[in-house]
């Protein structure tokens, strides 16, 4: 009985992981997600898939690292990954901020140039 439940859970986990992967691939294919960002998501789904297939994986890794309560690895790893990704996004947004500023300035200077050329004629 116990086995049936845990197999059911495993199937659900694998299905979710595969759906997520499909979702990411669809986004890339449609051009809505740039490859540079998709990289991290593909790794995430691969990990998700790995641990839903390899059921004892978490316990094995916890054993190696000497972590008493195995599921806490998930939280540790997830929070760590989220923080790093957020910093990455801040860097991206700062870079875009500068790019937008530069573009706006160049465009306004060109507009002015165009107007003054028109007046000369």
């Amino acid at each position, binding site marked *: 009985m116990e086995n049936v439940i845990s197999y059911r859970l495993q199937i659900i986990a694998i299905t979710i992981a595969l759906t997520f992967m499909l979702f990411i691939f669809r986004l890339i294919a449609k051009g809505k997600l740039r490859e540079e960002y998709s990289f991290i998501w593909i790794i995430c789904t691969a990990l998700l898939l790995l641990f839903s297939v390899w059921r004892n994986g978490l316990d094995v890794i916890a054993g190696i690292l000497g972590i008493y309560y195995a599921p806490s690895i998930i939280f540790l790893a997830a929070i760590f990954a989220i923080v790093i990704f957020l910093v990455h996004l801040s860097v991206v947004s700062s870079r875009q901020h500068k790019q937008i*500023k530069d573009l*706006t*300035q160049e*465009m*306004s200077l060109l507009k*002015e140039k165009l107007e003054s050329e028109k007046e000369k004629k």
Partner: protein
Amino acid sequence: MKQDGKETEMSKVFKVAVIIPCHNEEDTILNLITEIKNTQYSHHFVIEPIVINDASIDQTKEILLNHHVKFIDLSVNLGIGGAVQSGFKYAYRNGYDIAVQMDGDGQHPPAELEKILSPLYNHEADVVIGSRYITNEGFQSSGLRRFGINYFKWLNKSLVGITVNDSTSGYRALNIKALEIVSQYYPDEYPEPESVILFSLNHLKIKEVPVIMRERLGGKSSIRTYKTIYYMFKVTLGIIFLYIRLKFNGKRHII
């Protein structure tokens, strides 16, 4: 021969761009432009006002168009730093010798222009800052702002060892050497105190001259009381990191 060279140099006429960043200033902008055009200047300077319309949503653009004022039209609101930098880039690329930054709200009287221009004409400095705190004449500002100004004075002095009494003053003139630097990098928000560090670490000579300022005619200060804490924090961070970047990475990594 040498004498001659000096003479032509001295009698050179300086093309001056007066850069007026302007965000929703429909009430005051025209008065200011008229005032700039009607003020008498010495024959050393050709003064041309250039308004930077920072995506105003009122009638500013129409007013400027109807009165044939030269302006640069930003389609996205960039804030004071980005707007002023557009003007600096324009002046640098279009053969101006000097660019002056002047607020659009009427705080900076055109009658005082010559005071901040003449040190540049005499090659006494590369950057001239008009300060209201040297002689304490004219409109003075609130206690909290004065505290901030003294704090930045102390911060600048401890970092680069120069004393600027009013580093928050936006009334300043830059020569071509300074324009080259600010075209590459200029702080975004509240750029004035931070740019003092930028100038001095790029070995530009800064001079402060006393000017008489007026109370603003319209618009709001970009620094409101509840924002002062954020302002001080943001500018302190900006100053310290700009200092580290310029001091330890050299000029190439300025951006």
